[in-house]
């Protein structure tokens, strides 16, 4: 089947181009890209994009899906529907399921489930250590052969430097990308806010921002010693950016991500003990947020993730310290990211570089570009359409969004996966 998407504003992060044009889709891929005046379509369906933006679908490399073990929080189907509604055409499942994805068979199982149930592309990361316990490394080769695109212990930092060194050293022979959550565990244990005047006034147990820099600095020393490929999954503090850039200048194979929450919210949002803003890492000072925005705009930080972490209502209807940690993000991913564009901090092409092309490159996936032969994974959106988010309208099973009742700008009008329209 042939589909023509005509009269579009094409955004290609690979070339940085942002101009009118049209696409011809066939067999699940982009068959042709026409910049400028669009040609008169031949056979096939024609979709008039009405001049709205058409870009490669977002690739979200940090998503929690509750299969196996917590389908009441999010199934592959509900996560996929939320993703499609948010313009995300590929999501990467984290391995912190129940049981964790620490064996090849479990990775195969969840990917098979996903391919039956999800309207979008699903990949998974495998666990870095067995049971995410930080003691014994997993079978890296088997996990990669089963389809894992990287290895990580998700929210769990590997405290034991010897274990982490082994994982990195072994990964140089398997080629695995090691993804780590750099939070010094002893300082982070039992905390739910960032140390400072505000958390002290609220009386919340807090972690100093330097807990992130400390763990990152350790990791970078081990990367230097081994040469393994390393990705810091979510940085959130200004203090961590110095060690990161020095490591890059030294030519280490290091990359970093940041969650959209840490680019758009700050520690003051937890005022009145609003548990939907309880995240890990905790929301930071405005100076940190500002530094992270600058770092992602300059490309110093490579990837933006939604850090989608669904929780049922009961888990959040608790006092702040006891409440569950995390927020959903798939469905609001694009509008939230567009805040950076509307604030004049990034171009649309740069945004899609960070949230589509960069993760694709990092994980060896084919998306993230408008080019002949690229997958026809696309999002059509009106970058300016204003709306007020009502969480009851979300597609996800869990609706713990920090953006409830907030003004957003930018609406997804259509999402295509392998040339098939899955939303809009």
């Amino acid at each position, binding site marked *: 089947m042939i589909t023509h998407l005509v009269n579009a504003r094409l955004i290609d992060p690979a070339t940085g181009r942002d101009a009118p044009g049209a696409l011809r889709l066939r067999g699940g891929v982009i068959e042709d890209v026409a910049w400028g005046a669009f040609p008169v379509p031949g056979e096939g369906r024609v979709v008039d994009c009405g001049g709205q933006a058409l870009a490669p679908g977002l690739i979200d490399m940090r998503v929690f899906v509750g299969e196996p073990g917590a389908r009441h929080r999010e199934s592959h189907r509900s996560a996929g529907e939320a993703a499609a509604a948010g313009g995300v055409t590929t999501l990467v499942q984290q391995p912190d399921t129940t049981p964790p994805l620490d064996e090849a068979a479990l990775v195969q199982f969840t990917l098979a489930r996903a391919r039956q149930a999800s309207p979008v592309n699903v990949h998974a990361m495998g666990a870095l250590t067995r049971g995410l316990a930080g003691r014994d490394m997993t079978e890296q080769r088997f996990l990669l052969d089963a389809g894992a695109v990287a290895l990580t212990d998700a929210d769990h930092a590997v405290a034991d430097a010897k274990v982490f060194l082994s994982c990195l050293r072994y990964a140089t022979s398997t080629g695995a990308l090691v993804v780590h959550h750099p939070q010094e565990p002893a300082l982070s244990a039992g905390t739910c806010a960032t*140390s*400072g*005047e*505000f*958390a*002290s*006034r*609220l*009386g*919340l147990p*807090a972690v*100093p921002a330097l807990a992130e820099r400390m763990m990152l600095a350790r990791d970078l020393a081990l990367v230097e010693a081994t040469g393994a490929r390393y990705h810091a999954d979510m940085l959130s503090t200004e203090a961590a950016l110095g060690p990161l850039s020095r490591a890059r200048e030294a030519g280490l194979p290091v990359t970093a991500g940041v969650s959209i929450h840490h680019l758009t919210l700050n520690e003051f949002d937890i005022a*009145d*003990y609003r548990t939907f803003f309880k995240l890990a890492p905790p929301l930071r000072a405005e100076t940190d947020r500002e530094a992270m925005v600058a770092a992602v705009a300059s490309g110093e930080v490579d990837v933006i993730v939604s850090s989608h972490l669904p929780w049922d209502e*009961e888990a959040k*209807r*608790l*006092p*702040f*310290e*006891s*409440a569950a940690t995390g927020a959903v993000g798939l469905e609001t991913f694009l509008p939230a990211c567009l805040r950076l564009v509307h604030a004049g901090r990034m171009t649309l092409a740069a945004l899609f570089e960070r949230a589509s092309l960069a993760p694709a490159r990092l994980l060896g996936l084919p998306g993230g570009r408008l080019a002949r032969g690229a997958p026809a994974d696309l999002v059509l959106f009106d970058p300016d359409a204003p709306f007020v988010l009502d969480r009851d309208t979300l597609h996800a099973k869990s609706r713990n969004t920090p953006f409830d009742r907030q003004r957003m700008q930018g609406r997804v009008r259509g999402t295509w996966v392998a040339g098939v329209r899955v939303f809009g």
Partner: protein
Amino acid sequence: MIAHRHLLGIAPLSPADITTILDLSETYVTLNRQRDKHVERLRGRTQVNLFFEASTRTQASFELAGKRLGADVLSMQIAASSMRKGETLIDTAVTLNAMHPDLLVVRHGESGAVDLLAQKVNCAVVNAGDGRHEHPTQALLDALTIRRRKGRLQRLTVAICGDIANSRVARSNILCLNAMENRVRVIAPPTLLPAGIERFGVEVFTDMEEGLKGCDVVMMLRIQNERLDGAAVPSRREYFHRYGLTADKLALAAPDAIVMHPGPMNRGVEIDPNVADDIDRSVISEQVEMGVAVRMAVLDLLAGGRGDGA
């Protein structure tokens, strides 16, 4: 009158609110010293004391306050260990709410828990201490004690000494004393100071002798035993040596400085028994007396029926 539905903390109160509460408290101090200590301000009202964290004196004080105002008072101790905390909190709130109480007095071990509960009920809620956040009636009773002893509640230098980091009493007192335009000092080892304390509008001292110089009021805080074993302080005896209030250290404060403690005291840990029992300096018993009066004033202002035709 105060224009508040609940008393969740000192933070929302204006100086005028604080003065209103203290002025009304004075009338209850007088009442409480009479043989007949009963008025009918809360007749027909139901007050439920809901304590998720063990307390003897605060609960007794609120219970007595409610009874002296003529309310029907029910006190419930809910051990946090026997149930999963959060479920208990909202479920209990909803259950109690269905019984139409007029006042809920709540203590909980987690910061913000009382705010959360207040969102789920229709009646007035009084925070009797939430985690490390606030303990407003303690700060108000301290303010009343100071005002009576010093004749004013402005332009005084008040030193708060001890475990500031984990103390809701310290937070509420800092807010209250600052609102009334006093100079507040905090004195503690660095391990017991919360992050950002220098931005609370206080002077920070880690040397107790420096911090006490010229103070009008010395407010000691209780330190939990588990923090004295090397976690935050090397030992009990080193803590007493450096941060325990002794007569020698107190001599550095103003000659008429008063000594306060929210209780219960650890004698020989944060305070020398001779200082605690010095009737010329220690106002610790008076604080307990003021506690009942202040709580009567708060309960009266929140549920006493002014303005609703009762």
